[in-house]
């Protein structure tokens, strides 16, 4: 049985926020009497994550995804509740815990700006108590996986964003952590760089059985990496479960574009009882429920003269977008 590596119970986090009225009067008032209020950004959430799982945290800006990741890796203290990661209380930041995890934040860097990445790699290797031989071996292995080579010896400031991100990943993974916290890792990367990064993460997960917690606004990151998603809405969990179940629930129908041989056939199809989305000459788009798709297609192909047929999934961004604005999804 696969064990739970992350166990979060009734977790809450509040921040003290100071507010200021606009204008000179507000500024003076703010100078003498600063008004602060406590804002609860994470509200009593609980979840468990199994070893080797890749879980995507979804939510609108400010929903609390990054705050959750920061608490999981021990960067910030929780206000209430408990967190156990790999058997440790993260906020105590014990060396053995820190050697097990890594946090990668898109566009935030730990590499030394004026030196080639290789210098930062060896520095990190010594921080994580790796000897030179082992460090060399891991740098070689990871650089092959990430497909970087010459870039290792060029000052960081001269690297492109994609090359820098790969180097950041290498620096963050040199100690071979078994839990990865990734906050928008593909932010600002071009399509190819995004795809390569996803490929790398899939391979890393497969080869090391590492657990990955990921936030991203790019749906492709989520759909290609995560089987499970946790949707966060205003600090609470609105959905925690399988991504495909969520998609089925939110989009129970598929759209089918049918190209008929003649406009007459298209007219006949339009009046045959299917839900028609639109019709242009001999092309007609109908909506069919997921559970009756095989039988409906059989009927269409047997009764109408069809030239071509396309089954379209609804755009995932649209589907997930619905989740981000809703408080609760019971599936």
């Amino acid at each position, binding site marked *: 049985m696969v064990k739970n590596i992350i166990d979060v119970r009734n977790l809450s986090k509040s921040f003290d926020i100071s507010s200021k009225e606009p204008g000179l009067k507000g500024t003076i008032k703010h100078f003498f009497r600063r008004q602060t209020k406590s804002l609860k950004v994470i509200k009593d959430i609980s979840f468990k994550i199994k070893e080797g799982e890749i879980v995507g945290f979804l939510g609108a800006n400010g929903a609390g995804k990054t705050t959750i990741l920061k608490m999981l890796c021990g*960067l910030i203290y929780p206000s209430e509740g408990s967190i156990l990661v790999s058997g440790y209380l993260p906020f105590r930041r014990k060396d053995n815990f820190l050697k097990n995890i890594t946090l990668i934040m898109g566009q935030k860097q730990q590499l030394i700006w004026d030196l080639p990445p290789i210098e930062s790699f060896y520095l990190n290797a010594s921080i994580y108590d790796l000897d030179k031989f082992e460090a060399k071996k891991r740098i070689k292995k990871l650089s092959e996986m990430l497909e970087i080579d010459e870039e290792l010896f060029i000052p960081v400031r001269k690297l492109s964003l994609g090359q820098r991100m790969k180097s950041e990943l290498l620096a963050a993974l040199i100690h071979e952590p078994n839990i990865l916290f990734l906050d928008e890792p593909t932010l600002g990367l071009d399509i190819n760089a995004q795809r390569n990064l996803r490929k790398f993460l899939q391979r890393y997960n497969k080869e090391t059985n590492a657990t990955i917690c990921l936030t991203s606004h790019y749906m492709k990151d989520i759909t290609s990496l995560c089987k499970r998603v946790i949707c966060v809405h205003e600090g609470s969990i609105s959905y925690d479960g399988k991504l495909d179940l969520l998609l089925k629930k939110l989009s129970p129908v598929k759209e089918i574009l049918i190209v008929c041989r003649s406009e007459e056939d298209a007219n006949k199809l339009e009046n045959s009882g299917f839900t028609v989305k639109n019709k242009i000459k001999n092309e007609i788009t109908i909506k069919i429920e997921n559970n009756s798709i095989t039988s409906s297609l059989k009927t269409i192909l047997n009764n109408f003269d069809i030239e071509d047929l396309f089954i379209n999934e609804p755009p995932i961004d649209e589907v997930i977008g619905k989740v981000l604005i809703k408080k609760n999804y019971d599936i």
Partner: protein
Amino acid sequence: MISNLIYRKIFTLLKVQYSNMLEYRVEIALWAISGIIPFFMLNIWTNNNLNETINISDVLLSRYFLCAFFVRQFSVVWVVFSFEEDSLMGRVSPYLIQPLNPFFRYFAQHLAEQITRFPFALIIAFFFFIFNPESIWIPNLGILLLSIVSTFLSFLIQFLIQSIVACLCFWTEKASSIERLLFIPTLFLSGLLAPVVSFPSYVKSWIYLTPFPYLIDFPANLLSGNETNISGGLSMQILWIFLLFPLFKKIWSEGTKKYTAMGS
């Protein structure tokens, strides 16, 4: 085995930070030059014959200010500014989740910067001796070693004081403004502008209870061969380190609980 790992960690940190500092060698040379304030003070003292009031010869006074320059070069600390910027920009976050206190990085940065500064400081000393040949002297090896130790202890005291102030970033965000409050007593009471011996005796007795005279005055007097209580001075330096270190640890541990990881 453990000591070997620690040694390797320190050595790698220093090596990497030294490579980084070499990228800024011109900037560091300018910083070294900007530290010549003791020479201006020497000029003011000798032109106004102020040394007669404290019974120090011209030669000893010029050696004192040269040593003050050297001690300052190897004990200058800016950790509060680096930490504040890193904290505000969210750069502290990745360091916080590594099994090494981020202040070790800053510590290594400072040491690496001192190594980079060394040749520039020597060049400045060389020119000082060209213009003041009567000040040339060779301190005995024992005194030289004690002065190096004392200068390092002075650096440690300043590093700890600034690190404590830097930790206030967890509460105030702009901790450097608090550091500026400390700049005035550091400037006047450390011996950078005048040897502490020149203060009235009732003020002196109070000054010696603070850490300030052990930052420049004591190591500079020690190196320049002026009369000084060596064991008393070193003991006070060590005492201050023992007082400041637990305070730093406490503030660090409380401060990290307040950390909000802003900017990241």
